[in-house]
């Protein structure tokens, strides 16, 4: 019996050597290792042998079977390698892939999200308010009563309310600052909000002027908030948005609803402060207006200016991508040309 096992094995190995394709290999496997193969029959008929013979033959047969199987596996993988690497199956990898339709957020949305995230990281919360506002919130509440000269810098789009007797004047908000007042009216300090949103001006459009644009407003109110805190907050913001190497300049400016008033500028990244067309030959690019919230504004919403203080700031949002990407016409943002939008 043992001789038969040995003979079968040597036969099998000899045959295997001659095999050159996967189909012959499968035939070989069925012949020598399949359920009906001589090998299997021998292993099945072991029970008929004497215990001594069974041990010897069984051990040898199993041993050879394992060896045959191993060799089969090796042979199979080497034959597969030949097939898989055959040049007939090679693709032209330079052919274009099937396009997947991808969308994008509008660049203004992207910037709004980015700016909000920076301030959220500093403990600010996002607040929103109406775009059509009462004259009161847009002006009076912010220290600009009727006929105040400072209103001239807010060319206003008024809504047609005159046909309705007793209707209070309403307008398309000229800045996001009315939301400051609305939030202060309904919230007690500590307050830390940012307000993104659309604002409107009665203005002819050109490459640098658009009648509709977006602003981001910030407000922080608590005991002991100082101009130093305002500087620190805006400094961090400016460097997050415009890069760690930017220099930031704070100077005095006037806005009726803050006192002291602040103008924040960054050094021009085109000329690094030397003076060029972008910065109007000043070396600085004005980014936003800010200041300590005016005591009269606080008093009007019932916050005691002798106990609480705070700062507010506001900036145009489109200005950030305009500066960052060198966009030369603000009208591109709402012109919605896909060739423009898909660059961001």
């Amino acid at each position, binding site marked *: 019996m043992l001789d038969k096992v040995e003979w079968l094995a040597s036969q099998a190995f000899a045959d295997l050597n001659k095999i050159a394709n996967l189909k012959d290999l499968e035939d070989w496997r069925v012949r020598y290792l399949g359920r009906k193969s001589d090998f299997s029959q021998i292993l099945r008929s072991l029970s008929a042998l004497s215990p001594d013979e069974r041990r010897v033959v069984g051990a040898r047969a199993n041993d050879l079977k394992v060896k045959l199987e191993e060799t089969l596996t090796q042979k199979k993988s080497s034959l597969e390698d030949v097939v898989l690497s055959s040049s007939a199956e090679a693709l032209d990898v330079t052919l274009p892939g099937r396009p997947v339709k991808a*969308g994008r957020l509008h660049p203004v949305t992207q910037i709004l999200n980015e700016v909000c995230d920076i301030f959220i990281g500093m403990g600010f919360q996002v607040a929103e308010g109406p775009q059509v506002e009462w004259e009161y919130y847009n002006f009076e509440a912010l220290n600009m009563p009727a*006929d105040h000269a400072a209103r001239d810098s807010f060319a206003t789009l008024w809504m047609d309310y005159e046909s309705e007797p007793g209707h209070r004047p309403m307008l398309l908000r000229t800045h996001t600052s009315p939301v400051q007042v609305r939030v202060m009216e309904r919230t007690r300090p500590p307050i830390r909000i940012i307000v993104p949103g659309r604002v*409107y001006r009665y203005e002819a459009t050109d490459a640098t002027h658009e009648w509709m644009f977006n602003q981001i407003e910030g407000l922080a109110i608590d005991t002991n908030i100082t101009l*130093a805190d305002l500087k620190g907050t805006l400094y961090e913001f400016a460097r997050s948005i415009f890069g760690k190497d930017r220099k930031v300049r704070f*100077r005095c400016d006037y806005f009726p609803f803050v006192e002291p008033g602040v103008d924040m500028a960054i050094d021009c990244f085109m000329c690094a402060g030397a003076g060029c067309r972008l910065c109007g030959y000043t070396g600085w690019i004005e980014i936003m207006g800010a200041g300590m919230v005016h005591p009269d504004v606080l008093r009007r919403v019932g916050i005691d200016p002798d106990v609480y203080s705070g700062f507010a700031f506001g900036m145009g949002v489109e200005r950030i991508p305009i500066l960052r990407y060198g966009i030369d016409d603000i009208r591109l943002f709402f012109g919605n040309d896909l060739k423009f939008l898909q660059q961001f």
Partner: protein
Amino acid sequence: MKVSLKWLRDYVPVTEAASEIAHKLTMAGLEVEGMQVIGGDWKNIFVGEILAINPHPNADRLRLATVNLGSKQVTVVCGAPNLTIGDKIAFAEVGAELIDGHTGQKAQLKPAKIRGVVSEGMICSEKELGISGTHEGILVLPQSVQLGMLLADYMGDTILDIAVTSNRPDCMSVIGVAREVAAQTDKQVSVRAPAYAEEGPAIHSLAAIEIKAPDLCPRYCASLITGVKIGPSPSWLQQRLLASGMRPINNVVDVTNYVMLEYGQPLHAFDFKKVQDHRIEVRRAQEGEPFKTLDDIDRKLTKDMLVIADGKRAVAVAGIMGGQSTEVTDATAEILIESATFNAAVIHRGSLALNLRTEASLRFEKGLSRELPLIALKRATQLMVELTGCRVAKGIIDVYPGKEDSKQILFSAWEVKRLLGVDLSVDEIIRTLEKLSFECESTGIAEEILVTVPWWRTDVTNKADLTEEVARIIGYESIPTTMLSSSLPEPQTLPMRSFRQKTQDIMVHCGFQEIITYSLTSMEMLQKLSPKNEYIGPQPVRTAHPMSRELEYLRTSLRPGILATLVRNQRYKEATINLFEIGKIFLYKEKDLPEEREMLCAVLSSAQPKLFWRGNADPVDFYVAKGVVETLLSQLGIEAAFNPGDDASLLSGRNAVIVVDGDPVGVLGEVHPRVARAFDINDTAYLIEIDLEKLFSYRNDVKSYTPISRYPSTIRDIALLVDVAVSYEQIRKVIAASPLVNQVILFDLYSGEQVPQGKKSLAIRIIYQSAEHTLTDAEVDEVHKEILDILNHEFGVTLRS
């Protein structure tokens, strides 16, 4: 405000470079927007005198001028018509940089032979010197100028162009800016008190002044001069006016303008002989009162305006512009000079209403000090004496119903620390404020300081204002930079914002480009949304004075904006266009702000799908659009039903309402071809519109977990013959209602050959699965048969064999 550095030096000894002054002013809130250097490149230009004028031998229009430069004499060719022997002129030697009178370009002066005569130099016009555009004749200098000196030493100057903020009318004057420069450079301002002789009868016996509207005119001062000789102003005065951007007119008008520039107080000169009854009244205008202003325009006044009137009629719109009836002319000999204070708001409103912004109104509307009129009047009177040879009647009329005490503010070092975050001692604060002429007194109590505000600072009224003054002087750059250390507010999110952002993200992932369109639109655009071209939306809100017809109404729909954007992008023919916008629409509300509703609108269009070498992508159809809505809703965790819709902008029969919980939240469908045509859309377009705020109210933030079944599923595919009137959803509901059904997938829809008339064939895969055990064939057979029985019973559905 244009400020000459030379003029500034009359009041403060500026030694710093102009650029440093500009920087300091800018940092302190007076932004210097530009600097113009006059004579910066006048290297070879000298003051000369014309000694002789001779004809040019070869040209009638040219003459030969002999110029004395002190050290030498030269003869040059000159074509100017105003050559006069004895005149002082500006002479440019060869090598000087001049502006070419014809090209406007800067060029170096070369020796030239003009019609055979050598000319080594040039007598310059204002244009050639770059002072102004005047090129009609040469610049004639005053006789007093020293011969041979560099023109730059005489006329050179630097002009600062300062953007004065509306709270600082005091800085719309040279003296005001001088005070700022002095404070910033640690110097003193010196302004000489005007003095002049008075003679003749007292002004009170010659003129009367009455303020009938003391609420709008707190002070009115006047002086009277006689024997005025109208003529041109001296060159120094003309030069200063020109440097400040004003045109010289005559000595009287120039003096009033000069004093306005110097002190910031607008003045007005009346021809006193034309002032009826020699009487001045300040009163409110009558509604519709006619008035001809100096600019020769007939205007109608309103009762909101203030006028200066004489005994008979209005003679000036107070603080804005004088009238023709009392205008100073060459024949004028007696003049009443007005110097008054008017209510800022009334001037602002009046100048807007008349569309008349004058140098005077721009100052008055910001609120001038009531102490200023008298000082400025005296200065103007003095200059009139000096420049017109007039006599001054004794005294000044000073009607002052609105006299106020000087403002005092109780301030403290603690307040500075509280608002600026800087530790300054009481002494440091006092020293700082005193630089700006604030009088300070330590009260001796704690860190308190009693501050008296100088009269010209109408803008300083409270502690915060004083804090800014301190900050301006110590410099914003010296204030430390700290991070907020105060307590954080209670955490609060804006759930609508998160929901909006999530919706945006899903739409982007579905392949849509976000757009942002204008909030204003036109009635024409809104009408295009209806196939009958008539407006069918909710009542829109109109702007009072539309910027254009295209921007007249607040949008009541996002559709016009997105459809117009689609059209604008149609030229990129090779691709499908998927757009979406999330934005507010505005709906009229009575006696209230309009309701602002946040909407999602999307369009899909693909007349020509993107070319691809393995076959083009499938074109867009209704079910592609629906797939987007289904994806969006499923990502948001919202279940919706789709019912046939009747939206007018959409094509009937390809038009669905999206319903959540019985509530219609949106629509989708094919844009009605007539609507598409109205917008110039030449492809089939599909539109999705969802009320984001409604959707938000149905959002499901709570997610639940269902264990994944460990047991195998059984698949049964069936083909059903169904009446065409029966919707797929009716069939699906019945199948899905069975507890063992895990999934229902429609994989074919067919009607036509082999399917009886009025029927359709639905091929459906039903996947059965249990969470508890492996289903046996018998179990599935039973449920499957049950389903078929119900379908047959309810809808007459049969199996297709």
